[in-house]
């Protein structure tokens, strides 16, 4: 009781300057960037939709009139079990003029049998198989080589799609001719499966559902998800497809940006994915994803950060924002923590509790306010209410530690080049060339 009393007294005694001194990390990171800026971005997005409604209408009309062929490519290894469901999900699409190309990257299960059967029955249009696994980029590039469509959609086989998803993801190309790539809205299908999938659903709600609307609104949207992304075929031809991964979806987005095209996020083009259902699997996935920030932002595409030929301020901001909030502030958190230990050793418990209170409150506020901006949800917002306090532990600690390890391993050991996700025969070359 004494502790609670002391905590309340502590809160009452906090003035604005002292609050900023102790909770600066919350203010810069959570409040300013992920609440205030997001809120402004969402409002601007709504305003933009309303003010440009006639332009959107014209885009829709032009799109319907042209009815372009869309090539959907699905590269993968041992994905046979998902392919039929994917084909069924696509057969429900409101947009019909598409060709479906499946690329089997050296599967050692019954994937080729399943795909050949689907091909024979006319459920897929083209099927290619590499007997030797070459990595996801090579499989995607093989599919890309044989596409005939004006637009290319890249899908993951284990996802399913809203029946208007194809239509919604292609539409922005008619809205703005400078758009080179469009990202779809990825949501967690199995959010009820376990605690970890529920927490990921909340995370996707914020970082994908909201975060990408905002970054897209400000023109700094930087990653078209591999699970659901659309590209102009001529742009893909220009940038010559995907380079070696892991993290090839972020890489290709940067390549499109560098070629002078805009990247757009289509929140209504919804894709449902199965998130990892254990903390171990999630840690493995994020460890792979997070390494790509170092590899692609700081290494392969570091030229964006310098005033070289073809410098683009918007690309610089996109990179800078990404590096600042994901890399710099990630490490800053450790300084923040050390700062607290050294300068406020007696108040550490109070500070931690206050942080928990602040982040949780902000979580609820965001769930409530940002929820109003979402047109399409796959889960009711109230479902997540009990889990919001846990997000502090999940996002603030668990994912931070995974991220820190990934950054550290990539910065000092170039660990991504040894990732078995990519075959060694290609990783060797990527490492040699610093790709």
């Amino acid at each position, binding site marked *: 009781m004494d502790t609670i009393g002391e905590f309340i007294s502590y809160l009452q005694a906090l003035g604005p300057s002292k609050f900023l001194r102790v909770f600066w990390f919350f203010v810069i990171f959570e409040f300013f960037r992920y609440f205030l800026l997001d809120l402004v971005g969402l409002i601007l997005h709504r305003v933009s939709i309303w003010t440009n409604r006639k332009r959107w209408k014209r885009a829709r009309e032009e799109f319907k009139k042209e009815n372009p062929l869309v090539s959907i490519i699905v590269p993968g290894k041992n994905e046979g079990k998902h392919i039929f469901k994917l084909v069924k999900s696509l057969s429900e699409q409101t947009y019909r003029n598409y060709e479906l190309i499946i690329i089997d990257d050296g599967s050692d299960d019954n994937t080729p049998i399943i795909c050949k059967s689907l091909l024979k029955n006319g459920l897929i249009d083209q099927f290619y198989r590499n007997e030797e696994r070459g990595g996801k980029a090579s499989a995607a590039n093989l599919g890309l080589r044989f596409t005939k469509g004006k637009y290319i959609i890249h899908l993951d086989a284990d996802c399913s799609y809203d029946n208007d998803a194809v239509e919604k993801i292609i539409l922005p190309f008619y809205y703005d001719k400078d758009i080179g790539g469009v990202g779809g809205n990825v949501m967690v299908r199995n959010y009820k499966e376990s605690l970890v999938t529920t927490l990921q659903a909340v995370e996707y709600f914020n970082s994908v559902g909201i975060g990408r609307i905002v970054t897209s609104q400000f023109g700094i949207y930087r990653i078209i998800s591999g699970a659901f992304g659309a590209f102009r075929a001529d742009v893909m031809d220009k940038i*010559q497809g995907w380079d070696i991964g892991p993290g090839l979806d972020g890489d290709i987005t940067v390549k499109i940006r560098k070629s002078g095209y805009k990247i757009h996020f289509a929140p209504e083009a919804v894709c449902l994915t199965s998130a990892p259902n254990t903390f171990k699997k999630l840690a493995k996935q994020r460890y792979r994803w997070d390494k790509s920030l170092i590899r692609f932002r700081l290494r392969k595409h570091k030229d964006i950060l310098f005033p070289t030929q073809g410098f683009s301020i918007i690309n610089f901001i996109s990179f800078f924002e990404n590096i600042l909030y994901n890399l710099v502030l990630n490490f800053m958190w450790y300084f923040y923590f050390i700062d607290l230990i050294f300068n406020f050793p007696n108040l550490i418990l109070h500070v931690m509790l206050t942080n928990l209170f602040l982040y949780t409150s902000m979580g609820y506020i965001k769930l409530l306010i940002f929820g109003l901006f979402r047109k399409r949800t796959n889960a009711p917002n109230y479902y997540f209410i009990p889990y919001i306090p846990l997000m502090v532990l999940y996002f603030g600690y668990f994912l931070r530690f995974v991220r820190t390890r990934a950054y550290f391993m990539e910065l000092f050991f170039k660990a991504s080049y040894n990732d078995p996700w990519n075959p060694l025969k290609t990783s060797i070359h990527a490492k040699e060339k610093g790709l």
Partner: protein
Amino acid sequence: MKEINTEIIPSKENDHVIEFAGYTFYTIYNTDSLKTDDIVFYDVIIIQAGDPEFTRHIITRIRGHFNPEHYLKPILLLNQSSLKDPYTNLLDGTLYSLEQIKLILPKLQNILLRIKDLTFSSSLSYEALIIQKVLSYMYSRDMEEMEPFVDFNSGIGYNYPILSVNFSRHEEHQVLNIINIMLEEKLMKKEFLDSVYLCTKCTTGYLSYREVCPKCNSSNATSQDIVHHFPCSYVGPIEDFKNQIDDALNCPKCNKTLRHIGVDYDKPSIINDCLSCGHRFQDFNVKAKCMTCKFDNEVEKLNKSSINTLSITKKGQIMSVSGYVTTSKDLQEIIGTVKLDTFRTMLKYEIERLKQTEGNSNLAVLHLKNSGEAYSTMDNELQRTMLKVLIKAIRKYLPTSSVITFYSSSTILIAINDLPLKIARRLTEEIITLMRELMETNFKNMIVTLEHEVKAVTVKLSSDLQIQQLVKDYI
């Protein structure tokens, strides 16, 4: 008493005929017409023809005939070594001079002697007729086994000597149907030899397997490697990497020259281009074009059939002597009877019922001992009519709960249910009397030999065993 020649001498009346050891040998020359009707008057046929085509035709005419006096006739070939399978298998010997008849005579005598053992009845169906022919031919030649031969001219790719000769090339698939009947009837045993795939449209086996475009079915296509350049992940057909100047391969994405397969690039697959419709694909469809009817078959849908070496069973040997009249399939069509399998099942249920009720049921067998003789005097239609009349008459004597089946064309089984053994015996005897009267009225010169037995159904033995015990003396 006629004098038996011990030397080979030409006949005085006919220069085609020679006589030896009491047998007449009729020689067919290749200047003769293709008519073979006269051969019934001679014991052995000798073909002396330089033209193999003519020889083949004569052999086919004789062995393909449906009169046993034709198809069983011993045939020798004189002075012709160019004849190959399957026709040599339809011959009884090859001679290089007429003198060699002396050497082959014991074999000929044996054939002619065994032919005399055979009974020929008019079979109920075409299938039964062919089966009778096969069985009697095998018996007369003392053959225990019939081995099929690979034959280019056969509609199914394999020739069964005495069987295939009855069918034209486009009907030859029926050989397999006949074999199936013989196996079902347990007249033959089989040993797997090979499998054949037959056209779904015309059922011949002369197929051309081709890799075709999955879109337009054309076999006009080219193939090329798919190349994966490791450093930049570019993947495409090898044509993307070729240049106009030299033989080097250059990556179209990063302009690097490909150096070492497995190190900086590999060829993970191939791609095919159809030159007819332009379709690009990885896997050809395989189609089987029938060279007979030109139908392009899906390989998966081809009719697969087994080719087996056949050997005659004891039942087959008995049937060959007594005259094979009908198949089970033919008998199933007689109204008032059930299939033997159904009879077995019904008996099984009857035994179960008896276990509960302690009632009385009986099993009777009626057997016509000289059925071959009886059937031989009737044509197909008459046989069928006779069986129908007979069953109708038997039914009148029996309670409606009784079940009748044909165990064979000469053996009838009756389940007389819910009656004491004594009454069942009386009923059976009345039926026998009726049958005897019917037979004697219809076959005036024939001594009718009917046998019968009645046993009470016991709950201690299985239905199959009870049937087996009852019919064992009549098989």
